[in-house]
């Protein structure tokens, strides 16, 4: 079901009016279903996010498959062939198999989601993604009753991804979500930015976006999605378990062992940019805090 959540930034001026009204009505429905808290709506009204520029978003990236420098992905990612592209969906699903990207794009409803992106390295951006809810894709494959987690895997092509020739981490990059996190209306698969196809350095042709978690959870250039009943291994947790937990929810009160997470710098502000306070769950507390009720977020970092 598309349009289950609405951006905090209302681009009323950019969206045809009818569609805009339509979305708002759908939102009313979502509130009725209890999917979005009323407080979330109040926040949506009074706060507008200003998206970063196209250049900020596409030239300052962490995508170690193309190199560890922030500019390396923009320089090297053109080597990646993204067409044709197939995503394997397997594990505890009714219809396991190869899903071609073309087939996925035909089935899904693409919408815009303007989200904050908070990197674990204490910088942030606001990105106008285009994509669809992960829930819709998972429902396409039919999630089976016993499934509890979703595992994701990035493409690994040594000849197209120069960074993977070095053992920076244990390739391929893998990530995972709890099923309820994966099915949450905020969780999307992005296929575009600013209405254009997503550039390779941002994770073409399809990448995860989980806006309340540190950026590294939002795995790029996905080739496999596996439904499982076991907590799947995740790349940074395997590399440095005491620094990167499975959950990795944005949390200003729990510092990374090597740096503070209390503040962040918005990319693109120049040499004299200030820092801003990091928000609990990256500003999506109203929407997602209930997922972690009763959990010790310091333990489960």
């Amino acid at each position, binding site marked *: 079901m598309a349009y289950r959540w609405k951006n905090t930034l209302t681009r009323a001026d950019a969206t045809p009016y009818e569609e805009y009204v339509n979305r708002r009505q759908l939102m009313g429905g979502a509130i009725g279903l209890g999917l979005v808290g009323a407080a979330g709506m109040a926040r949506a009204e009074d706060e507008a996010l200003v998206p970063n520029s196209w250049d900020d978003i596409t030239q300052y990236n962490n995508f170690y498959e193309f190199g560890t420098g922030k*500019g390396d992905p923009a320089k090297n990612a053109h080597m990646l062939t993204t067409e044709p592209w197939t995503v394997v969906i397997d594990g505890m699903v009714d219809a396991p198999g190869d899903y071609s990207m073309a087939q996925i794009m035909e089935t899904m409803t693409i919408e815009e989601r303007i989200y904050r992106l908070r990197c674990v*390295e204490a910088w942030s951006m606001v990105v106008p993604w285009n994509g669809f809810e992960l829930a819709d894709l998972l429902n396409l494959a039919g999630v089976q009753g016993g499934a509890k987690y979703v595992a994701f895997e990035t493409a690994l092509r040594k000849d197209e991804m120069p960074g993977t020739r070095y053992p920076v981490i244990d390739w391929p990059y893998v990530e995972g979500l709890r099923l309820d996190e994966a099915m949450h209306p905020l969780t999307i698969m992005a296929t575009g930015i600013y209405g254009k196809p997503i550039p390779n350095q941002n994770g073409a042709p399809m990448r995860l976006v989980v806006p309340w978690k540190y950026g590294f959870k939002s795995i790029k250039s996905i080739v496999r999605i596996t439904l499982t009943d076991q907590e799947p291994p995740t790349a940074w947790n395997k590399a440095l378990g005491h620094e990167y937990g499975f959950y990795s929810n944005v949390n200003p009160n729990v510092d990374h062992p090597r740096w*503070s997470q209390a503040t962040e710098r918005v990319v693109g502000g120049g040499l004299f940019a200030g820092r801003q306070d990091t928000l609990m769950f990256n500003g999506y507390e109203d929407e997602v805090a209930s997922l972690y009720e009763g959990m010790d977020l310091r333990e489960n970092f």
Partner: protein
Amino acid sequence: MLIDGINSVARKVPTWAVYIVYLIPVPVLLYQGMTGGLGREPINALERELGEIALQLLVIGLCISPLRKFAGVNVIKFRRAIGLLAFTYVVLHLLVWAVLDIQSLERVWADIIKRPYITIGMAAFVMMIPLAVTSNNRSVRALGAAWRKLHLLTYPVAILAAVHFIWLSKGFQLEPLVYLTVILGLLALRVPALLRKVAV
């Protein structure tokens, strides 16, 4: 032949030329940072560029006496300039970090005590202060043998700086390990001489 050539060029080049050449990156980096030449996030880029130049200068400084001893290349007259330039870059690195990056005394202090890689960098910086202060002819004369002992601090400074770099890198990255290896290699060259001195 080659070595004689290098030595005669070195004799002719004034030390102030080294200062000038090595200070050029400062305005260039600042200009790039203000005009987009350092990418979308210039503060971190500037911090890293300055740190890297500082580390390179420390490595160059450690090369100078082995060059003379093992290759007969005499560039010792530049050693003080290299050391003071390294210190300058560390100070700039630290200033960019504190003023442009962290922007709060309270958080600067919190990071220095809480973050091991910052603590290590800071330890290296603090050890460099007496070295910089005594890098003049008067101190060399006044301190005599103690001066040489004091300046053995460059060894732990270089090791700490490389460890600082390794510690702040995410995942397994080659570059900081190469620096540490080179530094340890340059220090290993000195071990026989040091042992001999201790033995006597």
